[in-house]
């Protein structure tokens, strides 16, 4: 799809175009401001962060040192980060291993009633997690999975699978049918067809889907706090529990928040264009 920006037209006022650009910048900066402020506060001393807002100050890494230092009895940053990375990476890998063949089936050689199948996947997203939490909690307890990383891996996989199937299907559907037929005519086996023809075309889409699945899993809090609040806790739990001291805590909280959210922001920036294209195409094709 050629991304054509509706450019200026003959007769359109250049000034109004400039004004729209300025408004876009202002809106962009406004939306970003809370994040900017968060990061700014994380480099301040507690006194500076709690005082009147200032833009210029001597930055310090003190808060980062403090929140990442481990103290006995409390969930440390290192542990939480390791748990999150473990749970998120493993569940994302499983999501992709399950979703890629499914998407291939739904797009490249559509089975009958593929729309119904796709709708079933999406419809599971209609089930609010809160509605399933009780049986999940009981099942996890009975299976001895409470407070394990495994239970989060399984559930994050289920959480992200529908969206991954949906997005990947639209990326796979972009592979021209003729290309697959051409590879058949060229004598390619199914494996070599997938490896040499399909994967090179869909790999950016696979990367974007994996990143989105990574983002949702990393940010998940509800299941983590219900099923896994003790050992193996993840970063969102760490960030809500790391700073509990009353009094001056804003700078420390900001540092913790910045650390917690940095991986997903980077992943999101990397994947933004394709991520949305995959989501949006799913609606149209």
């Amino acid at each position: 799809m050629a991304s054509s920006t509706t450019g200026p037209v003959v007769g359109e006022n250049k000034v109004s175009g400039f004004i729209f650009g300025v408004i876009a910048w202002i809106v962009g900066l406004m939306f970003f401001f809370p994040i900017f402020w968060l990061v700014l506060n994380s480099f301040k001393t507690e006194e500076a962060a709690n005082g009147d807002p200032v833009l210029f100050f001597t930055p310090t890494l003190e808060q980062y040192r403090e929140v990442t230092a481990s103290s006995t009895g409390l969930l440390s940053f290192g542990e939480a980060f390791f748990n999150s990375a473990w749970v998120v990476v493993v569940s994302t890998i499983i999501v992709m291993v399950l979703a890629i063949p499914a998407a291939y089936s739904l797009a490249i050689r559509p089975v009958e009633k593929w729309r119904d199948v796709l709708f079933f996947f999406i419809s599971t997203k209609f089930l609010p997690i809160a509605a399933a939490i009780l049986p999940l909690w009981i099942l996890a307890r009975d299976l001895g999975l409470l407070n394990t990383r495994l239970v989060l891996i399984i559930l994050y996989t289920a959480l992200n699978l529908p969206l991954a199937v949906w997005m990947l299907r639209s990326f796979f559907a972009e592979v021209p049918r003729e290309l697959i037929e051409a590879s058949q005519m060229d004598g390619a086996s199914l494996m070599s067809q997938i490896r040499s023809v399909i994967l090179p075309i869909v790999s950016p889409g696979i990367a974007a889907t994996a990143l989105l699945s990574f983002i949702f899993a990393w940010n998940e809090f509800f299941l983590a706090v219900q099923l896994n609040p003790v050992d193996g806790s993840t970063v969102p739990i760490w960030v809500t529990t790391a700073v509990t001291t009353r009094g001056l805590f804003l700078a420390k909280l900001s540092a913790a928040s910045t650390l917690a959210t940095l991986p997903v922001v980077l992943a999101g920036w990397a994947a933004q264009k394709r991520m949305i294209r995959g989501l949006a195409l799913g609606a149209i094709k």
Partner: protein
Amino acid sequence: MTDVVQDQSVIVDRSDEVERIAKKEAWRRRLPILPALLFTIIVTQIPFALSVFYSLTDWNIVSGVDREFIGFGNYGELFGSSLFRQAAWTTVVMTTASVLLSVFFGTLIAILLDRKFFGQGFVRTLLITPFLITPVVAGQTWSTSMLNPQFGVVNWLLERLGKDDPIQFAGQFPTWTIVAVLVWQWTPFMMLIILAGLQGQDPSVLEAARVDGANSRSIFFQITLPQLRPFLELGTLLGSIYLIQVFDHVEVITGGGPGSTNLPYFVFQRSIGGGWEFGQASAFSIVVVIATIIFATLGLRLLSSLLEE
């Protein structure tokens, strides 16, 4: 003529063979879906089925009394409960407001971004960031750095503008404070989906409209907006699915404080959040599922009919 009849009798009819190959092929095609399908069915449908079952029982996990089958008793109780009605209403307000506002602002911003200007890509990157932020972090950041009565930036600004007593946002307007944070996070998502729609437009259609003498306004309302419909629908659908389930923001911004308890949070409070009334909570959760489905379909219908006129 007789030749043709004779010829037909020797034509190999392969329909059986073709059917057999097609069947085999169909299974080969279905096979790759099965792992994902089975996994999804097991992990999502079994808990749901159990929920339905629990909802028909009286079961308090701490009381030590055995589970007892009571039919639709929990549901009857539920509609009599003013707390439930309150939570249901909060859910409706919170979801509708945050979905509609983020679609509205998302559309406006998408239109702004759909023209070339200096730093377009950078501004888009700035705008998408709130969506990526971990919800609990977003909630905490807003309730502390931004809206806190003592050291929040917003109150500091209001003070500069002459307002003396700081506003207790989370205390005075709990639901709307949560909505504001949700809109901040979801507007970027809507914006990107709608932007994809705007950029997928066929430029020649817009040019044709301009040649036909349409002004920007009527082009937008008569051509662009109808073409955006599937994208608006998609945004509304995905937004509704995620926003009706909001839990994290409620937890960190108000902790379910005055009037901001929505249904998911209510289910949590009544069960593992301290109530331990599993039967009743299950009934609530079933209502949440039904509400989600009604909400999503209604939202879609409404939007479709609005655009059709």
